[in-house]
């Protein structure tokens, strides 16, 4: 019962984050909302596992946390260097002329 309440709260938060990800005026707003959606997914996994008495879902949650970390580092690299792999794509995309 109490887990159901928490799941509903996380689902509401997830919906609001999706709204911001769709509406966000800048790419940074969308990125922030996407990060929040990832966190919400992990909390949903954990809470759902507890609600159905199958805490093995936590292993999937740990995987998602680690994937979130990789994604964070990738985004960090993207904003620092402007590209993940090919420097010439950066040159073409960011060229204002």
């Amino acid at each position: 019962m109490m887990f159901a309440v928490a799941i509903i709260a996380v689902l509401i938060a997830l919906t609001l984050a999706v709204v911001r990800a769709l509406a966000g005026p800048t790419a940074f707003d969308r990125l922030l909302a996407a990060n929040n959606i990832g966190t919400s997914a992990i909390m949903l996994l954990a809470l759902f596992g507890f609600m159905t008495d199958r805490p093995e879902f936590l292993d999937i949650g740990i995987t998602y946390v680690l994937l979130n970390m990789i994604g964070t580092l990738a985004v960090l690299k993207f904003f620092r260097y402007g590209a993940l792999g090919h420097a010439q794509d950066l040159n073409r995309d960011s060229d204002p002329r």
Partner: protein
Amino acid sequence: MATVIDTLSWAALLGGSFFYVVGAIGLNRMPDIFTRMHAVSVSETLGVGLLILGMALQAGVTLITVKLIIIMVVMMWTGAVATHALARAALHDGEKPLLVDETGNLVRTDPVSLFPELGVRLAAPLSSEVVDEAPYAVPMGADGPITELPDDSGGDANRDARPPDPGKAD
């Protein structure tokens, strides 16, 4: 004893749900990216922390609690790193935060214009005109920012890390 732990768990789960939803509402209501980041950090620290505390109280001293703590520690760590990188990237991109100037008015401006000492601590592209040309941080070469990359399309997988060609670099 079980009733006490159940009550504490209830309280933690309800408090975590409350802060989680409050953070999500702030994400939609706040005026710019920096304040939105502030709102989201509420749900990613207090919300997640209380939800995990509530679940850990239900699980007791088991392997499940250890997994919950692993999730929380990694989440706190990456949340701080991601928020820092995001704020820095937004500043580099030219996002202007709402600040209070000397007369007490709210202005949307470059923080370096109000606090010149910030310009020393932040990376060079923020306070120079390079920012107008490139949307992201510009790699610095031996003689200034590199705006032209060496133009060879050979099968070199490590093109990013190569030092600039002094003949072709700007």
